[in-house]
């Protein structure tokens, strides 16, 4: 995750050549590097066609795009779609859902891998530790369809949870998946179930770098387990936590399309529709390409600003930052 080792260089930093034989030299160099360019070409072409041309394609956010007239001939409407974004109560609600979900994620899902890593770090029996690790990493590799499939099987009215709960508490089965109130808690729990174990890897790596003599010295000084965690383990995790937090802030408007899309149904649409799914419903299903693009572009730009700002903030407070 740490990208500081590969600082993005400025675009202008092209090699300088002596003026007289400039083209000749360049030609020689390109010929010398022809095989490297051969290897580079497919990947470069991919980046240009499928990553950068679509970035330019964002101009349709300022058009009334019609697939028949194309990118260049569609009618220009300026900031019309952006004005709609801020005046449409539906967008405001979707934006609110997105931010609320991210807030809950950062509050509840973000700390779990940290706690789990510390718990694993405290286990002295290496074998037990490794078995637990193998088990908690596994859900990361399951698809969202499988995870939400499992959740559906467990939580539907005639599912195992209701079969146990309703006779026990003497209540009617609870429609967890249809009740708006359960939507966000379930989404958060799913994320924790699927990703918390995987998320520990990066923290465990940071912990493996701690010099054991620090703990020994702490024991000599009479520090109990909590004090060791507080004064040695947590400080060792600090910069990792800060970096992951910065990266997380940059994605507060991303909700994980697949998970939300698969969890949504007509009953939970009001509380669960987020920007990602909204762009899909509007832009693809209703074929309102320009408006969907405007919402998407708005989202990407905010994300860009947030990650740059968070990075600067981290540097200001003496952390390394991401780039």
């Amino acid at each position: 995750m740490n990208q500081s080792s590969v600082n993005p260089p400025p675009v202008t930093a092209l090699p300088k050549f002596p003026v007289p034989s400039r083209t000749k030299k360049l030609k020689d160099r390109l010929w010398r590097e022809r095989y490297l360019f051969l290897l580079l070409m497919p990947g470069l072409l991919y980046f240009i066609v499928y990553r950068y041309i679509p970035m330019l394609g964002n101009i349709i956010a300022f058009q009334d795009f019609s697939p028949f007239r194309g990118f260049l001939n569609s009618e220009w409407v300026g900031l019309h779609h952006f004005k709609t974004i801020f005046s449409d109560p539906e967008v405001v609600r979707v934006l609110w859902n997105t931010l609320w979900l991210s807030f809950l994620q950062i509050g509840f899902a973000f700390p779990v891998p940290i706690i789990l890593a510390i718990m694993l770090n405290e286990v002295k029996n290496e074998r037990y530790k490794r078995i637990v690790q193998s088990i908690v990493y596994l859900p990361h590799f399951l698809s969202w369809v499988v995870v939400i499939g499992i959740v559906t099987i467990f939580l539907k009215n005639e599912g195992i949870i209701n079969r146990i709960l309703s006779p026990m508490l003497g209540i009617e089965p609870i429609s967890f998946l249809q009740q708006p109130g359960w939507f966000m808690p379930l989404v958060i729990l799913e994320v924790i179930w699927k990703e918390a174990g995987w998320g520990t890897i990066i923290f465990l790596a940071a912990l493996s770098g701690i010099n054991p003599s620090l703990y020994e010295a702490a024991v000599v000084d009479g520090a109990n387990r909590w004090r060791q965690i507080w004064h040695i383990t947590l400080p060792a995790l600090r910069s990792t936590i800060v970096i992951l937090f910065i990266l997380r802030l940059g994605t507060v408007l991303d909700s994980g399309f697949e998970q939300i899309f698969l969890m949504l149904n007509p009953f939970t649409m009001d509380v669960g529709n987020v920007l990602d799914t909204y762009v899909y419903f509007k832009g693809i299903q209703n074929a309102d390409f320009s408006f969907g693009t405007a919402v998407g572009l708005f989202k990407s730009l905010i994300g860009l600003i947030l990650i740059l700002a968070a990075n600067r903030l981290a540097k200001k407070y003496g952390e390394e930052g991401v780039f």
Partner: protein
Amino acid sequence: MINQKSMSERLIDIINIILLGLLALMMLFPFYYILTISFTSYEEYKLSELILWPDRWVTDAYAYILNSKEFIHSIGVTIYVTVVGSLANIILTATMAYAITRNIWGQKVFLFLVLFTFIFNAGMIPTYLIVKATGLINSYWALIIPGAINSFNLIVIRQFILSIPNELNEAALIDGANDLQIFTRIVLPLSKPALAAFGLFYAVGHWNTYFNAILYLNEPSKWTVQVILRQIVILNDTTNSLASAARDAAKSGILPPGETIGMAAILLATLPILIVYPFLQKHFAKGVMLGSVKG
């Protein structure tokens, strides 16, 4: 020193171990439950509250789902996309990663192009329109080409290639090898572990892909396994998604084994992941951490 642990220290250890054990059980129980129910008869499943061990092990659900042409076809499609897709991923990622480790003309620009996608991406709709414009809609290539290179994987593989001692390059150059030969005879063999690891990561991604399939493939006959799985388990629709099996069952007057079909489908769709998991596990910690090694 360490032997002088107080009672409370030991208590913390024990509670910690128990809590971790419970967490691990929480991760495993869904698998266990779905496995057992998939082998339970539908009648027994319907009647009992909680089944941890069925009275009778039956394979009705598996027989039903494997009789469905739609399901078998979706598995075939997904295997094809996974194999071809991962190969394409790894070839494109490795070649480009190698080219930008060398001091190639414009190297910094190319590297910047990759790194910039870390913080800014074209949105869903412009990408969709380009995929459409390049004629990939309803083609399996739409599941392969638009995600051909993962920028993060590319950077990690580049770091790995950079860690190969430069003396090897120089020795090969003196022996008269060109860049292509250096790539195929030195770089590729030496980066095999990294490439295998990322090949597996890409493969898991292809196997699990759902969003691209619904975005780019409109015909039900092209459904991948995750799409059909959603129809069966989440939307509870086996009549349309497993039409051929449903017809057969109706013809022979057998009642379909209800929700146990969904459980069998989940297990069949997860089996490949479970099979490669030990290999993934061997590699991933290294793979994930490689990225953070300072170059």
